[in-house]
């Protein structure tokens, strides 16, 4: 079957487990864009340490990106690595502390209540610990490791480090223990999370899913292992540089991340050139995400080298890099994958047993495909415009482009909602 080659869904958990994470993440994405449209002034003026900005960042990283990636991991680790999920019950348990913790942290940041931030943070860390334990126990059963599997394993290690640094920052926030070192640890936390956990997961899964969704064959994957290695080393180097190893380490880390993203960009282009179907929103969003990742890496490299655009303060450059990395690279890639993974999981749960015995809809019948098209048409210009608004220091432009992104996020959420809630779909043939 072409739909998900190399994925044995017999070992996957019931679709309800990943779906709750994916649907929650989509909701968080809508909330994020709404906030940026209405209260995003601090983001678009480059005040990246402002409470409102940090809250938005955690809504993006925990509520949207990590929530979706954890849910997808529950499905993809077993099927990509041909191993049964250690515990579906533990997976269900991990959802509540992660969701509640993320909500608490964001609410705490937005209301400037440190106690709520710390409580939410520890709760979210507990949820992630449950997920990591479940994932590691699952990985212990893997017999044959693939490059994508190794990238996922490395991503999980970076998630552990990111969460650990997050807990350290919470302690620092509560007790003031870190003193003047707080910004360095914050930077390390960000680099470990974005370059490590998020990027390694995207790359590791992307090399498998992008050809599948584009019906692409014959492309070379020899760079796959090196891309993941460069990302991992780059994330480690960048974090080390942030913690005091010096500009050399930070520069080397940024260069490695940039090289990895450039290689992934080339491979994505090769995959799409060899596609055997018309371009779908998943491929368009993925290509756009990769391009934003490249832009983020390039801007970060310029910043580390000290070659900032004239008249643009460092704070706005840092914020623009984060915006392109989180809003572009991660969000667009994830949005594209959601348009495929959610309907497939719903189809599997609702029709998998009935297919072949009675007429059932196709996967694409579960939601209106125009929603995916509109998600792409809105999210790409909204993201690029938003990044430009940050560099220009314009809250008005930022609000405008966030409005565009909000419409795109609503289109995405509507597609997810249609699939989950059951769009009326005509059955097709005997199956």
């Amino acid at each position, binding site marked *: 079957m*072409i739909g*998900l080659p190399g994925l044995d869904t017999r070992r996957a958990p019931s679709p309800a487990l990943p779906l709750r994470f994916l649907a929650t993440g989509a909701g968080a994405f809508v909330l994020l864009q709404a906030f940026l449209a209405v209260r995003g002034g601090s983001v678009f003026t480059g005040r990246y340490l402002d409470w409102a900005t940090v809250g938005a960042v955690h809504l993006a990283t925990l509520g949207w990106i990590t929530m979706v990636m954890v849910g997808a991991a529950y499905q993809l680790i077993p*099927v990509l690595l041909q191993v049964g999920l250690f515990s579906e019950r533990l997976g269900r348990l991990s959802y509540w502390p992660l969701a509640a913790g993320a909500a608490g942290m964001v609410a705490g940041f937005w209301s400037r209540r440190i106690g709520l931030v710390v409580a939410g943070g520890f709760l979210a860390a507990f949820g992630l610990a449950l997920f990591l334990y479940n994932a590691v126990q699952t990985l212990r059963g893997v017999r044959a490791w693939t490059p994508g599997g190794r990238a996922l394993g490395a991503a999980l290690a970076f998630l552990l480090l990111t969460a650990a640094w997050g807990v350290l920052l919470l302690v620092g926030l509560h007790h003031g223990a870190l003193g003047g070192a707080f910004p360095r640890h914050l930077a390390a936390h960000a680099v470990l999370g974005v370059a490590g956990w998020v990027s390694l997961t995207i790359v590791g899964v992307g090399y498998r899913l992008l050809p599948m969704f584009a019906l692409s*064959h014959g492309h070379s994957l020899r760079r796959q292992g090196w891309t993941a290695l460069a990302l991992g080393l780059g994330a480690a180097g960048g974090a080390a540089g942030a913690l005091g190893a010096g500009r050399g380490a930070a520069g080397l880390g940024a260069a490695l991340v940039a090289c990895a993203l450039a290689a992934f960009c080339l491979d994505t282009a090769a995959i799409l050139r060899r596609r*055997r179907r018309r371009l779908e929103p998943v491929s368009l969003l993925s290509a756009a995400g990769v391009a934003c990742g490249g832009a983020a890496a390039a801007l970060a490299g310029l910043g580390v080298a000290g070659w900032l655009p004239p008249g643009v303060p460092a704070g706005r450059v840092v914020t623009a890099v984060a915006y392109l990395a989180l809003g572009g690279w991660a969000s667009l890639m994830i949005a594209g994958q959601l348009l495929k993974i959610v309907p497939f999981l719903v*189809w599997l749960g609702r029709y998998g047993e009935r*297919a072949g015995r009675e007429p059932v809809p*196709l996967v694409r019948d579960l939601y209106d495909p125009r929603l995916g098209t509109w998600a792409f048409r809105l999210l790409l210009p909204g993201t690029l415009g938003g990044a430009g608004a940050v560099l220009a220091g314009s809250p008005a432009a930022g609000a405008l482009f966030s409005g565009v992104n909000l419409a795109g996020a609503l289109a995405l959420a509507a597609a997810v909602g249609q699939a989950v809630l059951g769009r009326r779909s005509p059955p*097709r043939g005997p199956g």
Partner: protein
Amino acid sequence: MVTEAEVRQALRGVFDPELGLDVVDLGLIYGIAVEDGAVRVDMTLTTRGCPLHEAMADWVREAVGRLDGVERVDVRLVWDPPWTPERLSEAARRELGL
């Protein structure tokens, strides 16, 4: 007695749920052999360990098993030669927008 053509026609009712194409147009059917009520179907998948490969083989088995005169269905997954998009039928290519 069931014929190879009838078996092939029955297989046009087995769809890839993501692509909406049947296994014949996808080029997944490598061979059909009919002998005394027993039907053997040699088929492939686009990649080893395909997500629903057990289900796909079951669907093929059920579709062929519904035919009059079929007493036993044997579905064999083969990997040589490996599937390539060149095996797509003209109708499949049109459907995929190629």
